[in-house]
Every structure is written in C-alpha cells, then in structure tokens.
C-alpha cells in the first residue's frame, strides 16, 4: 500500500495544502509527518491546526522542539551571524504567534514513530538537530539505521529529498594485543538498509521551488520523490506582511538557500 511521508512544513500553508491535495488525488490516506511544522513561515497556527484536523501522525522537529524548549540548536549550525540573527528572530516571532494550545501540541509530539520495519524521525535517531546528508559517510549513515533497529529510516531536516541504499557492506576486525596467543580476527557482513529523506514541503532546499515529499509503497518497497507546485506568491506576501525577514520570501521564490546550511553529521559540537 502507498503511504506518504512529509516533512519540514515550516508554517507555509499554501504549500501544505497543495501537497495534501496531491496526496489525496493519489488516493493515499496513510500520511506520516516528520516535524518542523513551524519556523520561517507566516502561518504556524494554521499549519498545526490543519495537521491536527487531518489527524496526521507527526514527530517533533527541531523547530517544534526549540519553540517549546528554547533554542537548542548549536549556534555553529548557522553559516553566519546574520543567518543566526534571522533564525533567532523567526524563532521569537513564531513563539509569540503560537497559541498556548498549539505550543502544547508541539511539546507533546513524539521524537520518533515506528511502523513495522520503518522508523520515522525528524533529523536522525540521535537528535532532531542532526543532519543526515546524502553524502554523509556511508558507514555512519548505516550506523544510524542499524542502531535504531530499523530497515528503512525516514528523515527530514535537510530539506533535500533523497533515497539512499546502503548495501553489500562488510567490516573486518582484529583484536590486537589481547594477551592470548591467537590473533582474533573476524569479518562481518553488514545488512542492507535504506534512508529516505522526505525533503521539505514548506522550505525546499533542493534547488527548485516546488514543495517535495515522498511516497513509499510498503509492498513493492518502492520510494518516489514527488514535486508539487503551489502558490509561492501567496506565501511570500504573507511573509512580508507578517514582518518576517524578506530573505525568507526571496528564498522560496528563487529556490536558493543562502541561509541555514546543513552540517555534516560528523560535525563535532561540544555543546
């Protein structure tokens, strides 16, 4: 059966509506959301209410967590101080706009959702803030899926949709200086695992301007990336009217990403 996985809605209501319509047109009723309902965009309450109304299973994103708990992302995840200030401003704006009820809703979202062999998370099984980029070290990527005891890991957070298959792996280890005479050596085969990044509905960063999400068929194991057009102008106007940084609108219109850039997971933060 086909199921849809969406992520990073970022308070962009026209994009969310367009994607939900696209999902409905395919007759798909099983939808999972990987969080970041808010942040950057102008309609945080409206997006949360739509997700609640449609009863879409959702895990907590980095923005959802930060809006509730205070800023948690390490500052080093911002490429510049200007980007950081903009991010903090959007954070504060969102915190002020959200109703108490909607904040509670975000606070109570689970970190992960498990369905059979699939695990759904926002960033990685370790943290809502960890980026699993498509070119991340393959062994480290496999470790994330294996450690989470899943076969397919669905994540978002990078805003770049991709499907990554990790296969035919093996590792050989040798115990050196064990005290016993025989050198213990063994080779182990690694299991085949997949990581599926659902991209972003409300803040695409894959180069294009369309909203992205994925459709997974749990019988054929097929995953498809979908791109959906939406009324970008409408969101851009709302961003300007809300007094949010105009670059957020410019970014949506141009499909470029000059602000918050994803960091590799091997990025070492001592926070």
């Amino acid at each position, binding site marked *: 059966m086909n199921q849809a996985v969406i992520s990073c809605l970022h308070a962009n209501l026209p994009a969310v509506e367009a994607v939900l319509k696209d999902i409905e047109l395919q007759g798909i009723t099983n939808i999972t959301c990987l969080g970041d309902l808010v942040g950057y965009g102008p309609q945080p309450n409206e997006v949360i209410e739509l997700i609640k109304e449609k009863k879409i299973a959702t895990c907590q994103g980095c923005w959802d967590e930060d809006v509730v708990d205070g800023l948690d992302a390490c500052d080093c995840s911002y490429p510049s101080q200007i980007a950081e200030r903009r991010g903090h401003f959007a954070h504060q704006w969102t915190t002020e706009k959200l109703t108490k009820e909607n904040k509670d809703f975000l606070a109570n979202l689970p970190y992960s959702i498990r369905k059979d062999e699939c695990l759904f998370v926002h960033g990685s099984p*370790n943290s809502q803030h960890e980026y699993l980029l*498509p*070119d991340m*070290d*393959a*062994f*480290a*990527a*496999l*470790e994330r899926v*294996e*450690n989470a005891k899943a076969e397919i890991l669905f994540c978002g957070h990078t805003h*770049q*949709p*991709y*499907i*990554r*298959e*990790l*296969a*035919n*792996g*093996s*590792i*050989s*280890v*040798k*115990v*050196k*200086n*064990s*005290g016993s005479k025989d050198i213990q*050596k063994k*080779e*182990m085969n*690694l299991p085949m695992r997949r990581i599926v990044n659902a991209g972003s509905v409300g803040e695409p960063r*894959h*180069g*294009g301007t369309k909203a*992205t999400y994925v459709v997974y068929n749990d019988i054929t194991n097929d995953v498809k*990336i979908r*791109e959906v057009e939406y009324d970008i102008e409408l969101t851009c106007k709302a961003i300007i009217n809300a007094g949010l940084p105009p670059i957020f609108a410019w970014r949506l219109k141009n499909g470029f990403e000059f602000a918050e850039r994803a960091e590799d*997971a*091997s990025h*070492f933060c*001592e926070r």
Partner: protein
Amino acid sequence: MIERWALISGLKGDLDTYELIQKDLKKTPGNITLFVLGDMIGPEKNCNKLLHRLINPKSNDLQPWCIYGWWEEQILLESGYRGNQRAEALRINKGEEVVKSLINAVDKSFLDWIAALQFGFVELDCGLIHGSSKDVGDDLTLDTPPLTLLDRLTRLQVNRLFTARSTQQFHLELTEGILNSEVHDLTGNHKKEQKVPQKAVIGVGAGKNYTLYDVGTDNTQFVRAGYQSEKKKNGFGLHF
C-alpha cells in the same frame, strides 16, 4: 628518543595509585606524555589530595594532561554547572547516598578547575576522550558493534580513538571495510563504493590498569601500576 604516551583514567581520588604510576613512568624509557582521561574523582574516596596534586604537580612529576570524565560530568551537573540539569541518571541508578558522597568527596574550590577541563584531545590522528565524541558516558568495549566504533571514529575524524569509560583494556583494529552507497535524488542516481582505511579503538583501562602507547610503531602495552618490579615475570618489553 621514542615518543610514548601513558594513558590513565578512573583514579577516583586514589593518590597512591597515581604516585605508583608516576614512579613507573620515571623508569619507562622514551619521551613520555601523560594523559589522564577523566574520572579523577569518584564517590568512594576523598579526592582533594589527588586533585591538588594534578593541578600542582611535584617538581619531578610528569605533567598530567587531564580531560573530564563521567564522574566529573556528574559533579558538574549536580553543582549547577549545566543549567537546570542535575545528576539525575546517577541519582536514579545509584541513589541519593552516592550523589551525596560524590559532592562530599570534592572540595568546592576544585569545581571551576573541573569545569574548565576539555572534553577530549586530538593528537596527531588520534582522539583521546573519556567515552566518545557522542557522549562522555559512551561505554565502548570489544563487544561494541564495529559500525558503532566506526561512527565514533568518524565523528572525531580520527584514525585511532583512545577511550576509558568501559574501564577495559583492549586494542581493536578495524582492518577493512567496504560499503556500497547509492543515492537517488531529483538529479539522478549517484553510486559510490566506500572503503575504510585501517582504524583502531583502544580501551586504556582504569585505576591501576593503564596503557602505554608507542606513537611511532602504533603498539600498545597494557600495564598494571607497579609493573616495573614485575616486568621480568610478565615479559614486558616484547612489544617495543
């Protein structure tokens, strides 16, 4: 002269053991650097004398290079150095008594020094850390899945990781690894075969058990404090 590292951990206030190790190292050939990979403190003993000695080495002591460990993290948590968090994991696992004993074992005047300790050192292509770069409490052993070990090495971008949290002594080499990765995105398919260069994780031990590492030859020697007097019996020297 041969460059050699001495890696110790888990002294937990035991000045006698520290003095025994200092004595050993004076007799050990080579140019030795002494690293103390955390857990200088613990709840069992009063730790003030050892801390004083680490901060103010005697004139003939090898200078100790210290990082913080799991017990240091607990006292910093409990003493309010980590915002609103407290040492809840310790409290739940070991009880209120142990939390109290830890607080009583360390004079408050040492807390700022402990708080200023580094999380780890990166020397050459080696990471020296109490647990791992993921967590100070990360308990790496011979039985940890190799994928996890590789991940911890990758996070620090090192080829060798010296860890102390498990208190075990081991030298595990990841000799070979291969993994095929195929990424499909909106621009197409990208295939890559990834190989791992040789890497290693070394458990340095705790208390009287410590590790000597010969930087030039990549050999480890697992030692028990006072080994010099026992060295003939144990055949020490074979690895160098």
